[in-house]
């Protein structure tokens, strides 16, 4: 990640880096390769490296050629020719068969007619050959999709002071946001990574509820999190990576809450977006929500949590089915006296206090959603009869009886599920 945003893992012992357009940051390909390998060695992973036009050629050169070979553009073939055929990443059968036929070097394969080669050793051999030479494409599975929305800042001296971290955060945000603006885009997620001297990464993330590219605002979201960054012996490189990049018209710039007032005709959601971003970044995604209706009769499932600025849903809760203002996450058992089948209790005891029911409404029968569960769990024993009851002081409760009377030896139990205000 320090060297290139596009890194692919190759087997157990290899790494592919897409260094196109990156090497100039390091003063050329050779300098970059030296730096990379020196670092790997310092971190306890001595490695060999090579740079070539294609992943296949780079793989071969890194393993079988002189260490730190750099193939000139379009010049892989002469470099590959003296390498053993194992450098071509052939399948096992072909690899075992080739030496038996006296074919030891890649150059010998290159000299053979392709049709024969394909017939004898399978199409994959030809494909591997083409991939090494750049005649066929090879797709690498990068750990993170290659993206142009990436920027880095390297420092002559490692930094560690918090004020410095804040300053470079602002700088790198400005850098990336200027590019986003030039292309008329905004991003929703930003990841700022501090690369320490000892090779450890310290990521800091921020998200926006709407695509944005206001550098000051993004930096403001990132800065409070900087105190979680442990600079260790110092930080020498900072990278910022933008994801979920979307087109954004230039009119939406400057959404900072301080720049606008309500009379300026700013939409409700636009003024709220900075607040939602602040809260989400501070508390976490799952702690800020808007409750939306969901098509379900089961009270616990009638509410679905949405991001606050998502478009509102079309559904609505049934106004004829009153629901409590406070719903207990777990219904609490109540002791019921004067039980009558198919009637609410006359008196019940909840949390040590006995209450006489003065008014009652119900029942509203709610079955379990049998299509979601095994049949045993949704049988008649799980049917709930809900009653709205009011006691003598006017407090209103939502109580239910689980199960039915007279369907066996089990006695239905009563529960309190919610409180009306």
């Amino acid at each position, binding site marked *: 990640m320090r060297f290139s945003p596009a890194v692919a893992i190759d087997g157990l012992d290899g790494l592919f880096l897409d260094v196109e357009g990156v090497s100039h940051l390091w003063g050329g390909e050779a300098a970059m390769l030296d730096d990379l390998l020196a670092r790997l060695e310092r971190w306890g992973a001595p490695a060999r490296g090579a740079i070539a036009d294609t992943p296949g050629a780079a793989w071969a050169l890194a393993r079988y050629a002189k260490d730190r070979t750099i193939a000139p553009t379009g010049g892989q073939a002469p470099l590959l020719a003296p390498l053993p055929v194992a450098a071509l990443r052939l399948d096992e059968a072909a690899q075992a068969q080739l030496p038996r036929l006296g074919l030891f070097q890649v150059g010998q394969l290159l000299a053979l007619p392709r049709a024969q080669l394909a017939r004898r050793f399978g199409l994959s051999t030809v494909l591997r050959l083409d991939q090494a030479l750049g005649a066929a494409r090879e797709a690498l599975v990068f750990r993170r999709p290659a993206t142009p929305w990436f920027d880095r800042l390297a420092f002559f001296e490692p930094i560690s002071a918090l004020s410095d971290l804040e300053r470079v955060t602002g700088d790198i945000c400005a850098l990336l946001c200027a590019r986003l603006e030039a292309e008329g885009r905004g991003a929703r997620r930003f990841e700022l990574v501090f690369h320490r001297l000892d090779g450890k990464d310290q990521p800091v993330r921020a998200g926006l509820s709407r695509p944005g590219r206001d550098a000051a605002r993004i930096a403001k979201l990132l800065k409070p999190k900087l105190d979680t960054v442990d600079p260790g012996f110092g930080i020498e490189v900072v990278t910022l990576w933008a994801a979920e990049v979307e087109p954004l018209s230039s009119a939406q710039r400057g959404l900072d809450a301080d720049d606008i007032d309500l009379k300026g005709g700013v939409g409700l959601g636009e003024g709220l977006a900075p607040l939602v971003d602040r809260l989400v970044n501070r508390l976490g995604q799952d702690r800020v929500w808007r409750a939306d209706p969901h098509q379900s009769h089961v009270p616990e499932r009638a509410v679905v949590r949405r991001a606050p600025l998502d478009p509102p849903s079309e559904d609505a809760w049934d106004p004829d089915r*009153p629901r409590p203002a406070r719903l207990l996450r777990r219904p609490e058992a109540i002791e019921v006296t004067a039980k009558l089948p198919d009637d609410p209790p006359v008196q019940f005891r909840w949390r040590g206090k006995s209450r006489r029911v003065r008014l009652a*409404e119900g029942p509203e029968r709610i079955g379990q959603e049998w299509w979601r569960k095994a049949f045993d769990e949704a049988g008649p024993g799980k049917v709930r009869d809900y009653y709205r009851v009011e006691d*003598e*002081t006017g407090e209103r409760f939502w109580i239910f009886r689980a199960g039915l009377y007279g369907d066996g030896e089990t006695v239905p139990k009563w529960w309190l599920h919610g409180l*009306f205000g």
Partner: protein
Amino acid sequence: MAGAKPALSALRAQIAALEAGTRTPPSVLPFGDPRIDGCFPAGGLPRGGWHEVGGAGLEEETSAAPAAFSALMLRPLAARGAVVWVMRRADLHAPGLAGLGFPTGRLIQVRARDEAEVLSVLEDALATVGVAAAIGEAESPDLKAGRRLQLACERRGATGVLLRRRPYGGAAGKIREVSGAAAQTRWRIAAAPSQPPPGLPGLGLPDLGPPRWRVELERCRGGRPGAWILEQAEAADGPHPFRLVSKLADHDVAAEAAPAPSVGFADSSPRGGAAPSVGFADSSPRGGAANAA
């Protein structure tokens, strides 16, 4: 009572302007009934400030009646912007609020980890453009937190409600009473027995009527306390969310016969001599209460 005499209301506006400095005077949220609105200095629940709402007994933990009352009270504000509800225990049930006519599409719920976070999120929300009101559930905010909330409310004219709640129970009687000084008003809400709808008495128990609350305005800056039984208004009753069922006499008697400290203060206010003599016998003791705070 407000605006009863032109000279008096002009004077009151002058004082308000002095107190507020360069701030624009906050508008109010009327209850639509002179018997309630009269208790407030400006004829309605002042916006641009925060209000403390609490319950008693078990309601300190469950906070159902105060929550329903607050949602209903702020319902007219939800038309002007978003409402942020900050809580520690996420047991607020949006369908229940929708049943009270509250537009839940404008409700942003935030679950904070601790009390300090509730207060800081509440403060952040109140100072944000586009937020008309914010409700926070906190146990016992101190004076400094209260003052910060007040400043946040004044920035954009948002209305705050602080629900006094101990979300996970605990030792009773721990709630401090100091925070009230920074709040515009302090309310105590309890449930009240509802009137079952008329109809033939069936075999079982009668149905429930519209919900009622026993509402006590314990403290009102610049106004006087009061106590009422309020009922959720039907659609036919007009735009205001409450219908006054009856006025509870105890507070009024106390206020008129033996004034409570915050009320009686105005009589001894130093501005009493400078003002025209028309006013202060029946005026709201705004200056006095402000000094006391």
